[in-house]
């Protein structure tokens, strides 16, 4: 009877590496399309550019069934609490790609109506520049996100998301105690963050 060589049968690795390998190749996108970036996204997901090559072709319009939020377009201040709620409802672990300048910084809409960058209200992992970005750019953004997932630590991702939940609780407390709408509570929190020199509310 031949002796079993353990080196042929077993691969040793770190838990982070093997879990992240699985995560990065089975992303489930939630397309949060609010403007023309969503049109470029449709092209990217369709046959010519083919998002399926990266294992992320199954679009889910329910946050419960997705873990990669693609923000495709201008987010108004009125939409900000909705965006936060939907991000909170997504399955963990979750990532956010901010596609285009409107989502990333407000873009040309430097007005009372537009949120000046979604990273003020939810954590963003990758920013894709462009107005709108070409499908290749969005794909490149998703590839960058895959690189990021490959390298990250499982526990740090968990803490990262937990910080957001804390800020959501804070927002709900402000709304209940001061009788404000979600929009106004977020604006007040942003003003407070600006006074502290912080750029975000989470």
């Amino acid at each position: 009877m031949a002796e079993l060589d353990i080196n042929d049968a077993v691969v040793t690795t770190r838990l982070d590496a093997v879990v992240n390998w699985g995560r990065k190749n089975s992303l489930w996108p939630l397309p949060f399309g609010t403007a023309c970036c969503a049109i470029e996204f449709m092209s990217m997901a369709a046959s010519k550019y083919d998002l399926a090559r990266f294992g992320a072709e199954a679009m889910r319009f329910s946050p419960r069934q997705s873990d990669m939020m693609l923000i495709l377009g201008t987010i108004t201040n009125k939409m900000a609490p909705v965006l936060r709620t939907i991000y909170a409802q997504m399955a963990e672990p979750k990532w956010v790609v901010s596609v285009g300048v409107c989502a990333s910084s407000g873009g040309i809409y430097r007005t009372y109506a537009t949120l000046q960058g979604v990273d003020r209200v939810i954590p963003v992992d990758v920013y894709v520049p462009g107005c709108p970005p070409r499908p290749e750019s969005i794909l490149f953004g998703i590839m960058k996100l895959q690189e990021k997932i490959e390298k990250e630590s499982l526990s740090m991702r968990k803490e990262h998301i937990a910080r957001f939940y804390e800020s959501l609780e804070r927002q709900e407390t402000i709304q209940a105690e001061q009788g404000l709408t979600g929009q106004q509570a977020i604006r007040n929190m942003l003003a407070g963050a600006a006074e502290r020199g912080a750029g975000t509310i989470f």
Partner: protein
Amino acid sequence: MVIEHIDAQLPGAITDRHDFRGDQTIVVAKTNFLAVVELLHREGFQLLVDITAVDWPERPETQGVGRFDVVYHWLNLANQERLRLKVPMADGETMPTLTATFKTANWFEREIFDLFGIRFEGHPDMRRLVTWDDFPGHPLRKDFPLDGGDAFCMEGCTAPYNNGERGGE
């Protein structure tokens, strides 16, 4: 033409008028407004196309003329005649609502309240339409800063736009 009919039946109601390439505009004082609208409705102007407002912050707040023009657009479906009607009014005054005669006036008037802060007396639901309920100020007023005083866009937020005013009654 309907303007002659208004002149005949409500003499002196039209305080100003002009006609640019067939675009007829009349200016009516607030006191005569409802009588003129009733006449227009009788004459067949049954489609209220739009209501909007214009802010003229430099205009003096004398009797009958203030910083705002409330602008109504009508279409006569029988003969395709169009008419624009302007009502000048001062800040803090209210306009009578047209919701009883024209259902479409409901959201138009809410939008004007939201963006200009002009209230409509007798409106069944005078809430903001597009911004949120506790939005500070009225953004289409000329003295409202474009960035709304966003804490991250510090330029241009010196105008006095927020005195704790809230939407709704």
